[in-house]
């Protein structure tokens, strides 16, 4: 059996165990519900065209605008219909538009003659969407790398804590153990995101926001490779952190730097997302690139070559962290008394090759 086969076996076990873990299943279902709710509910709640109470004489232009018209005998009845909540608005002689507390835009525009509008940049993104989409990307990367990174650390600690690691190390190369865990974590993370994305896409189609979908397409396409490498980067740190301690209770102490490495870029991207210079810098820094670069692509700020350069930088960083993480893992895996310092782990590799 070679390292490859051992890696596959290790990864298969991790996935099997995780798929039976109730917490994992519940959190996945929870994410799916959020994705479905976020895409299906808003169009439903916005409730379609307004209902207008109006006398038959004035109903013509309102019908033509596609509004729901309730004909009433006179203006008093029209006003009463609005007060009773039977209609969203009423049009009375004047003409004047009546509504309870909010001007009904669709009724107003049906009655006015609008000047011709020529959009000079018809592809530009709706500012609300432009804020929400990067937030969603950053949030997904943040939550997923955090969740699955912690799980990799926990799985490493479990093997250290129960000492089964001695049996494992005697049977397979240490690298295969680490590679299997990273592989399983990546597959599970991507699988969960893919599922959420699937539900979100279905929800958008159902809620008739397919225009947004075609806008998101390329950004999502870039998000996948950035996410993958970004995840390896973060997961390597979690693996090293997990290997340094012996008990699950002690993970807090070593995980602080890892948490910061995920959290700071997350907030930087959220708060600086309209600062062009800051975003350009963030989109090249390995820790923030997974969220910042897809965002710049989405808003159309980045030139075609930019994601490639950022991706190469991220790749170099991810490989570097993976190698370093593996070394710390190998150096501390079998040190089962107390917490191991990074320096000791780095210097001392106990296992035979």
């Amino acid at each position: 059996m070679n390292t490859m086969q051992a890696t596959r076996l290790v990864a298969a076990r991790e996935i099997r165990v995780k798929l039976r873990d109730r917490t994992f299943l519940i959190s996945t279902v929870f994410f799916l519900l959020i994705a479905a709710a976020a895409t299906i509910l808003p169009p439903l709640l916005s409730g379609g065209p307004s209902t207008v109470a109006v006398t038959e004489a004035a109903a013509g232009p309102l019908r033509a605008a596609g509004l729901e018209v309730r004909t009433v005998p006179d203006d008093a009845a029209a006003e009463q219909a609005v007060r009773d909540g039977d209609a969203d608005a009423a049009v009375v002689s004047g003409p004047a538009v009546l509504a309870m507390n909010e001007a009904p835009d669709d009724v107003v525009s049906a009655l006015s003659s609008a000047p011709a509008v020529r959009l000079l940049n018809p592809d530009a993104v709706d500012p609300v969407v432009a804020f929400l989409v990067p937030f969603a990307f950053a949030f997904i990367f943040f939550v997923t790398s955090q969740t699955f990174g912690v799980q990799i650390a926990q799985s490493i600690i479990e093997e250290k804590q129960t000492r089964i690691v001695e049996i494992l190390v005697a049977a397979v190369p240490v690298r295969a153990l680490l590679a299997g865990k990273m592989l399983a974590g990546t597959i599970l993370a991507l699988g969960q995101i893919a599922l959420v994305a699937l539900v979100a896409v279905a929800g958008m189609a159902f809620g008739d926001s397919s225009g947004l979908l075609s806008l998101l397409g390329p950004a999502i396409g870039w998000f996948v490779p950035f996410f993958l490498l970004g995840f390896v980067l973060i997961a390597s740190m979690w693996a090293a952190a997990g290997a340094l301690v012996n008990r699950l209770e002690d993970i807090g102490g070593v995980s602080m730097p890892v948490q910061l490495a995920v959290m700071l870029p997350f907030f930087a991207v959220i708060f600086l997302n309209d600062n062009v210079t800051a975003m350009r810098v963030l989109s090249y820094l390995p820790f923030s690139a997974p969220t910042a670069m897809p965002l710049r692509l989405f808003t159309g700020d980045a030139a075609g070559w930019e994601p490639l350069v950022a991706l190469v930088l991220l790749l170099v960083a991810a490989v570097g962290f993976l190698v370093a993480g593996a070394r710390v893992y190998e150096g501390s895996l079998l040190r089962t008394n107390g917490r191991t310092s990074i320096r000791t782990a780095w210097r001392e590799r106990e296992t035979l090759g």
Partner: protein
Amino acid sequence: MYTVTKVLRLDGVDRSFGDRQVLKNVSFDVAAGRMTGFVGGNGAGKTTTMRIILGVLAADAGQVTWQGVPLSREVRRRFGYMPEERGLYPKMSVREQVIYLGQLHGLTAEAARRATDSLLERVGLAERGGDLLETLSLGNQQRAQIAAALVHEPDVLVLDEPFSGLDPLAVDTIVAVLRERAAAGAPVLFSSHQLDVVERLCDDLVIIADGTIRAAGSREQLRATYTSPRFELVVESDAGWLRDQPGVTLVDLDGAHAVFDLVPGADEQPVLHAALARGPVRAFRPVSPSLAEIFREVAQ
């Protein structure tokens, strides 16, 4: 020495942790088909030695060979190991993790399943196979641990304190399984604090103290080498006269009942004659010194 070529051999193994040297020039053989007991006090170096055999720890100097070949990971994959501090996955079923470990040791999924089922049957866990490990009693977890060490029918077995925490029934089960492996031609090295168990079990014995091997060889050989001939005598009245008998060292005297050692090479018959001359002799027989006594003698 042994004529068999299937020997696990440690040759001049040193190991230090920091400036504390825990193994000094450790050399001994574990022969195929024999149960070798590895005995020593706490901190004597048993676990370190076993970890080095399994490649979990590197030796600073010296080497370990199996059938004359230095150990590699490929060779070690065919070893079975039960570490001192027990551990399997608490939240995985017994059967599933034994299968998994079998696969990690190179078995196909199908072979691992078959080996697991027959082994769980053998150690009396067939009914609990589907249960999560953490729901088993400590004794049953220990049985599962043995199954995990044996699932791939290892060429060599290394077991660190395999009997600690086991009830006598479980000890018998495990002993039977281990003997089976030894009879099939595998060297079996096991450490234990329980000298009585080792005494009952081992063919060969390795005694370690302060990181050095104090004695190694077959049990009988060690007995002959490290203890003087001992006898038990029961007479009619007081046996206190033995004190003045030449070549005799009294070990225990209780009225008419006495246990004594003879100077090596001395003949026991004159003592019997002397006893008969004083009156009836109810019993006179050689006593095998216990392992504990050999151990005390050697580990000083």
